[in-house]
């Protein structure tokens, strides 16, 4: 009988649960400065977004350079709902922002007939078109001057836990998708879409499904992000930089894996935070260098590097044992 991996292997589930609980208790037991709390919150949000992007880019192999459109749409829909004369409670506004982004993602249906670089180029077009559309749609987005949300100090502190909860859900969802028959079919479509159809996989349906799931979660992230900054503008929310950020985080960490986008997002947020303050010109260059090194030497990014180190250590240990064992 073939051994099959559990959907959520205990080896990953137990450390993950411990980390989430520790992070949830951190502000209560240890205490964090507002600066640290904001950094954590931002990291949780970026991890959620990167993992959701990875469902498309990693599992399905459709690399999107246009996810900022979904992030921005979710953010502005949530912001508008919260600003309305009868303000919607923030969690409902975020949720509806995610729903709006999910519905908008259905528009990718014709593009998903394209594969590889052709799909990526199409997403650049849609992403940039969205940015322009929403910049000029001043009634909705406030145009170039953006939207200010009511400042709510209590909300900003609470967002730490909301963002942590979202991240935990997205990590669990990533495991569920990857290890279920859905993930198996996505990987089959990634490898050979025609061969997958020949054994019964409805490629069109599953591509649309993953696009909608990915878009909805990225939209949800955008909603929380809008509450977090309390001020959003189209050039930032819909910017090409933001689309690139989703790609960068996954590729730096290890595309197609679950640990990868998590590591990638942490590195991305920290590097950005420290470099942007002191060397604003250097930080994009550093990402570029990192990307070149990863593509040349380690396609699985930081995750691949970690695996390589683990293998080397194990080999060295095994070698040492053999030396000891042999007379």
């Amino acid at each position, binding site marked *: *009988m*073939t*051994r*099959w991996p559990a959907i959520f292997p205990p080896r990953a589930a137990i450390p993950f649960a411990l980390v989430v609980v520790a992070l949830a208790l951190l502000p209560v037991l240890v205490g964090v400065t507002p600066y640290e709390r904001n950094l954590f919150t931002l990291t949780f949000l970026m991890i959620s977004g990167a993992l959701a992007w990875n469902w498309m880019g990693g599992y399905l192999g459709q690399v999107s350079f246009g996810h900022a459109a979904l992030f921005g749409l979710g953010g502005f829909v949530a912001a508008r709902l919260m600003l309305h004369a009868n303000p919607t409670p923030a969690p409902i506004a975020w949720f509806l922002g995610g729903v709006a982004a999910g519905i908008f993602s259905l528009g990718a249906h014709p593009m998903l007939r394209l594969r590889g670089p052709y799909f990526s180029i199409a997403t650049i077009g849609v992403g940039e078109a969205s940015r322009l559309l929403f910049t000029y749609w001043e009634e909705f987005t406030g145009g170039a001057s953006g939207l200010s949300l009511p400042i709510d100090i209590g909300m900003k502190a609470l967002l730490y836990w909301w963002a942590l909860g979202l991240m935990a859900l997205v990590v669990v969802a990533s495991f569920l998708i990857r290890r279920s*028959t859905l993930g*198996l*079919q996505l*990987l*089959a479509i*990634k*490898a*050979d879409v*025609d*061969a*997958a*159809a*020949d*054994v*019964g*996989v*409805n*490629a069109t349906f599953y591509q649309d499904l993953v696009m909608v799931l990915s878009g909805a979660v990225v939209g949800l992230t955008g909603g929380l992000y809008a509450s977090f900054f309390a001020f959003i503008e189209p050039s930032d929310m819909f910017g090409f930089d933001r689309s690139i950020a989703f790609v960068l985080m996954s590729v730096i960490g290890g595309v197609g894996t679950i640990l990868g986008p998590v590591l990638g997002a942490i590195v991305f947020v920290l590097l950005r935070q420290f470099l942007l303050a002191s060397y604003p010109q250097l930080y994009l260059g550093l990402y570029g260098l990192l990307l070149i090194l990863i593509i040349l030497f380690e396609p699985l990014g930081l995750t691949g590097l970690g695996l390589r180190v683990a293998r080397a250590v194990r080999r060295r240990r095994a070698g040492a044992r053999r030396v000891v064992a042999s007379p």
Partner: protein
Amino acid sequence: MTTADPLLATRAISKSFGGLKAVDGVDLELREGEILGVIGPNGAGKTTLFSLIAGSIPPTSGEVLMRGFRVSRRPAHKLVRAGVVRTHQIVRPFPNLTVAENVAVGAIHGMWRATGTPRERAAEVLEFVGLADRALDLPGTLTLAGRKRLELARALATVPLVLMLDEVIAGLNPAEAMRLAALIRRIRDERGVAVIMIEHVMPAVMSLSDRVAVLDHGKKIAEGTPAEVVGNPLVVEAYLGKGHGEARP
């Protein structure tokens, strides 16, 4: 369903690519539990005929019937649900999935006609084709014969009624070819699957097939038992050219 309706039938099915008629008005019938060989010279339209039946490409005209119901012009994944599955001449495993996962992808869609989980189904099929010990390996580590078995297993996991094999024996050494031929016979005998096979390896196709259809330039030029077909002068002409057997000037 009436007994008069064959399991699978094509009615005057045709496919044109521009001015070229790749398949031209072919009528084929496949009965339950039968192995039908399809032979013909290179470029006769055999693989195109398979693609038409499997729904990979739509026909220009004509139709495909399954037990009397039209199944043509449906996408490939729906034909798998109806019970028609094909393999490819050049094997196409999913290189990023293990052998067992490759088969499980097929098994997901066999659940319409089988019990158990896709994983149990995959394990059973791997055992049947003799790849159980390679379940956790990547397809790239298999020999050609192993990859052909994998291609067969992935198709079988969909629990087909009709299995279409596109040159699964070609390219194997004689011992491997014998074992694979035996496996094809077991698929029919033990699993009750009807088989249509394109094959160039004549000893295999002649010994396995109950009936053989011959295609040439997109048309069916002969059909019958292996012995009848071999003796048919039209078939000899298609393979060897006109004038064979006559005194040369």
